[in-house]
């Protein structure tokens, strides 16, 4: 049956009528009017592409977080004005907001506002300072640290924060039955010994130089309250000791915070903070433009350049998230190091960053963010060199064109990146077939080890900024690279050796991580492409808001005019 046969008779007769000049002009006029109306709302002045500001000088103790580049001079936080600020986000508000186990953005947001960590990382100076702790802990011996809590700190129900709560929390996190992802972060702690109400000793399972760094992410929970509420209820609406309390949670949709009225520190300047889901990027930006929301921390990168006018301020800062390619080293062709190195030389990072992020990213050569203190910017780099890529493929003796499956994601900047990688590889003799999956479902092919090369993105920074967590997460096990245990051993030894160097041996630590970076660059089990930026936007009547490297804003310093 032809198209014509399927159309109603009157539609067909309409289409077959001759188009008169009057009809054509009327149609064009209507179309032009509609287009003009639509264009009215679009910004006509492009925002000057923000450049990443220089990093603060790294300190020995921690990592200086990069400072944000904004389109308007950020206003200093003004006097307390109250009011409600709504933050529009892309992701769903998950079921688990418990800092012991929650892993989505909402959970990290809650941890930052509702809880206090034992130590704090000052993002401006990169220095580690006491949080819940009264002072920086004291190292008793290679495997023991002693810490005292600040006296007088209370949970939101008025009960005191004690060393028992710290012991309880660590015990749960490291309990396999509790099934927290963070067991991988804190399992270097063998036990916590309570000395008195505010004093405890951490007994380590092995020497660990990043103890202070790791405690900047550890937020104790109240044992009595958590046990009374039960796991399910506590996950949904955890009780903390921070400047904010959870007032309401609408599953998947919204999270409301109100200030804790007995907070001893500087009082939050707002009456209410709402973390609200807007899944569609265009709808989120429209909501910002109409002041339905005040801040969004998820600006689609293709819209970012055209914002920054009409009462909207934009800001971007190098983040901890990254793009990379993982190789299945357990099966051909990427069980051959020469082939992996050829892949690395075939990749043009500048082009990839331009295509996917409009150039707002930073080339990466190792697991750590490019701005991290332990990153060696002059280290071993397998730079873009198509001729070298071809030579390595020839040396590897593989049949050309070399066919394999390149796994990637089927939407957004990730899709742009994987298709560009495919094109770059084709120029040097690879013949990748794209295998695209939605969201995290691509990891099914990593789980079953069927993948060959996987273009993925990650953000290990939500777990911490010490180099050990980064290397351990990506390179310690065989999950991503499918190496044999024997092959993996040398990496585990190097990672453990670096982790064991005491925090006071700064130069030695640096050398160890630089050597690790070079080793991994040579092996190319994971090819790191870039460190991404966060893209935030907010109304110009919002003061005190700054984009952060981990996309978790500090709402206590934000005010609304």
């Amino acid at each position, binding site marked *: 049956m032809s198209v014509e046969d399927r159309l109603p008779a009157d*539609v067909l007769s309409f289409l077959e009528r001759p188009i008169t000049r009057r009809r054509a002009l009327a149609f064009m006029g209507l179309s032009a009017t509609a287009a003009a109306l639509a264009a009215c709302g679009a910004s006509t002045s492009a925002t000057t592409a923000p450049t990443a500001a220089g990093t603060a000088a790294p300190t020995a103790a921690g990592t200086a977080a990069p400072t944000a580049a904004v389109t308007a001079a950020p206003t200093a936080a003004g006097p307390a004005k109250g009011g409600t600020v709504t933050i529009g986000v892309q992701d769903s508000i*998950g079921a688990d907001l418990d800092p012991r186990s929650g892993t989505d953005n909402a959970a990290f947001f809650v941890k930052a506002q509702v809880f206090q960590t034992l130590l704090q990382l000052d993002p401006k100076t990169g220095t580690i300072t006491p949080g819940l702790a009264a002072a920086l802990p004291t190292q008793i011996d290679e495997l023991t640290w002693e810490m005292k809590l600040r006296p007088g700190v209370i949970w939101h129900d008025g009960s005191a924060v004690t060393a028992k709560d710290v012991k309880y929390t660590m015990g749960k996190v490291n309990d396999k039955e509790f099934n927290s992802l963070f067991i991988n972060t804190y399992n270097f702690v063998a036990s916590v010994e309570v000395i008195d109400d505010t004093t405890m000793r951490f007994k380590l399972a092995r020497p660990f130089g990043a103890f202070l760094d790791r405690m900047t992410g550890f937020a104790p929970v109240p044992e009595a309250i958590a046990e009374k509420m039960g796991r399910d209820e506590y996950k949904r609406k955890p009780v903390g000791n921070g400047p904010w309390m959870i007032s309401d949670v609408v599953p998947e949709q919204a999270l409301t915070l109100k200030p804790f009225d007995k907070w001893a520190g500087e009082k939050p300047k707002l009456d209410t903070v709402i973390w609200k889901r807007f899944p569609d990027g265009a709808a989120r930006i429209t909501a910002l433009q109409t002041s339905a929301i005040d801040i969004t921390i998820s600006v689609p990168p293709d819209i970012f350049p055209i914002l920054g006018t009409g009462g909207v301020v934009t800001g971007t800062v190098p983040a901890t998230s990254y793009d990379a390619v993982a190789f299945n080293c357990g099966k051909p062709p990427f069980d051959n190091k020469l082939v992996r190195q050829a892949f690395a030389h075939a990749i043009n990072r500048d082009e990839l960053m331009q295509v996917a992020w409009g150039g707002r990213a930073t080339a990466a050569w190792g697991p750590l963010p490019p701005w991290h203190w332990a990153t060696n910017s002059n280290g071993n780099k397998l730079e873009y060199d198509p001729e070298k890529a071809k030579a390595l493929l020839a040396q590897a003796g593989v049949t050309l064109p070399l066919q394999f499956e390149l796994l990637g994601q089927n939407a957004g900047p990730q899709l742009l990146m994987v298709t560009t990688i495919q094109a770059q590889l084709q120029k040097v003799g690879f013949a990748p077939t794209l295998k695209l*999956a939605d969201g995290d479902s691509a990891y099914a092919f990593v789980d079953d080890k069927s993948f060959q090369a996987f273009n993925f993105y990650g953000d290990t920074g939500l777990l911490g900024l010490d180099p050990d967590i980064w290397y351990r997460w990506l390179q310690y096990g065989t999950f991503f690279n499918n190496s044999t245990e024997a092959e993996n051993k040398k990496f585990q030894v190097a990672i453990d050796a670096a982790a064991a160097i005491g925090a006071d041996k700064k130069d030695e630590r640096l050398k160890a991580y630089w050597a690790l970076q070079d080793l991994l660059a040579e092996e190319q089990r994971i090819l790191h492409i870039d460190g991404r930026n966060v893209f935030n936007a907010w109304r110009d009547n919002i003061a005190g808001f700054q984009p952060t490297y981990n996309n978790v804003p500090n709402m206590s310093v934000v005010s609304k005019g």
Partner: protein
Amino acid sequence: MLLVPVLLGISIVIFALIRVAPGGPARAVFGPTAPPEQIERFNRQYGLDQPVPIQYAIWLRGILSGDLGTSLVNQLPVAALILPKILPTALLTLMAMLVSVPLGVGAGVLAAIRRGRLTDTLSRLGFLFGLSMPSFWLGIILLVVVAVNLRLLPAGGYVPLEKDPIGCLRSMVLPTLTLAVPIAAVLSRVVRTAMLEAIGEEYVRTARSKGLPERIVITRHMLRNVALPTVTTIGLQVGYLLGGAALIETVFTIPGLGRGLVDAVTNRDYAMVQAITLIIAVLTVLTALVVDLLYVYLDPRIRLR
């Protein structure tokens, strides 16, 4: 009679399809880089390592006892998560039909009785425009023009009806228009075609020859005969609205069934996918039943057996 086998068939297909897709709810809970042992522990804990037929039997037993299951991603009963989604979708469906039916039927009638004239041409242009234009594009244009530029209405988001009825209705205007335009376009075409057929019928000539006013000829005689295909089309559109408005719910940030289904599929939240699909299937079948009953009322020649 056919309701049960239809629902059973749908449930089996959906149960199997969602499990064929790679990935599972564990990744949605733990994130992409969770170690395999964590994933395995999660799957063991929630019976996802069981054979699929066993999982289906367990789920079916729960359904038959009124238990829609637990969302593994949200760790809440599915019923508790779905209930708040039904009202926004129902409201959107109702408002879209309240706008599109009078608009579509009215346009169709006018086009038919003024065939060949400007009204008819505009109606047919409207039909093409309404049908050709992607609904999400229309939604975004309305957002930009009405909400951003003119600031007449909110830019999306859903205000619960019980909290602020006026705010709720205001927040539903733009999504209603977005949904109503293509439906009205289809309806206008169906009504016009049926009216043109009716105009040529003998009973219309008889009615006019009796001296009845044209208004009475149209409303009392012609429209009754046009009602059958119109009701059929309306029934089909209601079924589409109940389950297929996910794009519009996304653009306008309405936490309805459509958006909930998309999220559930993305997160591989099996229980939510199965429950929402079943609910949409039941509502669609019930809509078809209502349409069948309306046939009997509208056309006395049709008898229920």
